[in-house]
């Protein structure tokens, strides 16, 4: 087994930006005939390479539009890179958009199974974790109510509880992730801290150098789709602060 949990090798991601979205045949034919089927090419990621060792906690920093989300999506396997490849060893838990697999007509209980299945868990595994998920989400008797009657806080609480029920090898976190009220926030942070203490590999997207210094041992700066710096978090955070000030 390799000592690396994540290997990103020369990943480039090309998007075609149409001025207008062509999604119907008429538009397509007209544009094709008049040769206006033009688009601007946009490289969201350019030759990105880095390796993350098992147990490393990497802060990913960069301005808006630097390619942070695109990078995380290629690592999560949602986007396939135009060039290069990504290797991830072990179970990956992306805590990015909690509850993307929920069906509003289903009850919370039914959604636990559906969402778990979407994350690729087996039925027996979800059954085993069911009580723990319900308890952690603090939904109580609402678990059997249809999800369309849930508040957004209830949905994210349930999403968080399901996504973290598994012991992942790689955890992808977004700073802007807000889970419920203050009390639940503390509880969820505690759970993430416990996972970190267990030696899980973490990718953490953040704008705050303070939090990156506190949580991460490594850091990476993305600018216009390229890795500008990758190294010890203190060093990189100093660089990032400088970049922000000089902007």
């Amino acid at each position, binding site marked *: 087994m390799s000592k690396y949990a994540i290997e990103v090798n020369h990943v480039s991601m090309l*998007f*075609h930006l149409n001025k207008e979205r062509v*999604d*119907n*045949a*008429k538009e*397509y034919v007209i544009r094709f005939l008049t040769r206006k089927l033009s688009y601007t090419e946009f490289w969201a990621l350019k030759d990105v390479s880095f390796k993350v060792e098992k147990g490393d906690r990497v802060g990913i920093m960069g301005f808006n539009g630097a390619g942070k989300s695109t990078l995380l999506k290629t690592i*999560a*396997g*949602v*986007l*396939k*890179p135009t060039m290069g*490849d*990504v*290797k991830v060893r072990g179970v990956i838990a*992306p805590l*990015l*958009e909690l509850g*993307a*697999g929920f*069906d509003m*007509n*289903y009850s919370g209980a*039914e959604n636990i*199974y*559906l969402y778990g*299945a*979407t*994350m*690729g*868990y*087996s*039925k027996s595994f979800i059954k085993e974790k069911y009580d723990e998920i319900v308890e952690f989400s603090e939904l109580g008797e609402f678990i059997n109510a249809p999800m369309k009657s849930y508040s957004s806080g209830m949905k994210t609480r349930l999403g968080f509880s399901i996504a973290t029920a598994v012991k992942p090898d790689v955890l992808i976190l977004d700073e802007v992730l807000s889970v419920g009220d203050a009390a639940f926030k503390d509880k969820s942070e505690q759970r993430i801290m416990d996972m970190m203490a267990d030696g899980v590999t973490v990718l953490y997207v953040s704008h705050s150098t303070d939090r990156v210094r506190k949580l991460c041992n490594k850091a990476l700066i993305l600018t216009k789709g390229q890795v500008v710096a990758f190294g010890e978090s203190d060093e990189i955070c100093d660089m990032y602060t400088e970049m922000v000030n000089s902007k």
Partner: protein
Amino acid sequence: MAKKVGFKSHTGNFMKYRYLLGELVSKNIKLQYRNSVLGVFWTFLQPLLTMIVLAFVFSNLFGRNSAEVVNYPVYLLSGRLLHQFFVQSTKKAMKSIRSNTSIIKKVYVPKYIYPLSGILSNFVTFLISLLVLVGVMVFYNVIGKNPVAVSWQIIFAVVPVIVLFFLSLGVGMILATLDVFFKDVENLYDIFTLLLFYLTPIVYTIDRLGFAEGSWQAMILKLNPMYGIIDMFRAAIIHSTEFMTYFSVNDLIYCSAFALICCAIGFLAFYKKQDKFILHI
């Protein structure tokens, strides 16, 4: 993500996500009738009521019972159920990628799970709705008016049903791929299914239209694979006592080949284009 993905990892991936497939199929079925008073009974009522309407409208035109038709309501229903399954399952599959955009954009899921679950859930409701056909046949046999004689050869009805499943799967995969790039497909397909309803002998028989067996018009109608599938199904359901005289091996070969070619095109197109889906939805 290596470039060449072996067969082994494909089946491994399928095994990992087969529980998701089951969850999606049961979700589609459960939610279809949730909050409706009659619930699952609609699976029986819907085809039964349509049969009554169609029988009422077309009985004077095509309704005369003959050696081929035997019992017009049973004739109607046997064609209509198969056509309905084909239309509904392919429509569900067609829209499956777009309607699951939010998941596909955020979590890695093997995408073919969505059209496949659409076909499978409709297949389950179709199998349940076949009970209506049984009910109607029992009804006519009990009252003794235009009874449909039944023999053990009725089990051959399984053959056209299997062919129909693969035809729907293939067409569904093609439509799902197309729909991602051109949303027009949804509108076009609505018109197409209406045309298909009239091009398939559901309410009529080909000779009632005045086309002789072997005429060019009849030949063109028979190019439609639904013709052969429904014809085979009726041979087993309506003519089970003399199944072999009504069953056509040519139908079976033609329709199976058509279904398999559709599956090959559908899966190949889907597989080649699936990484681009996310950029278009």
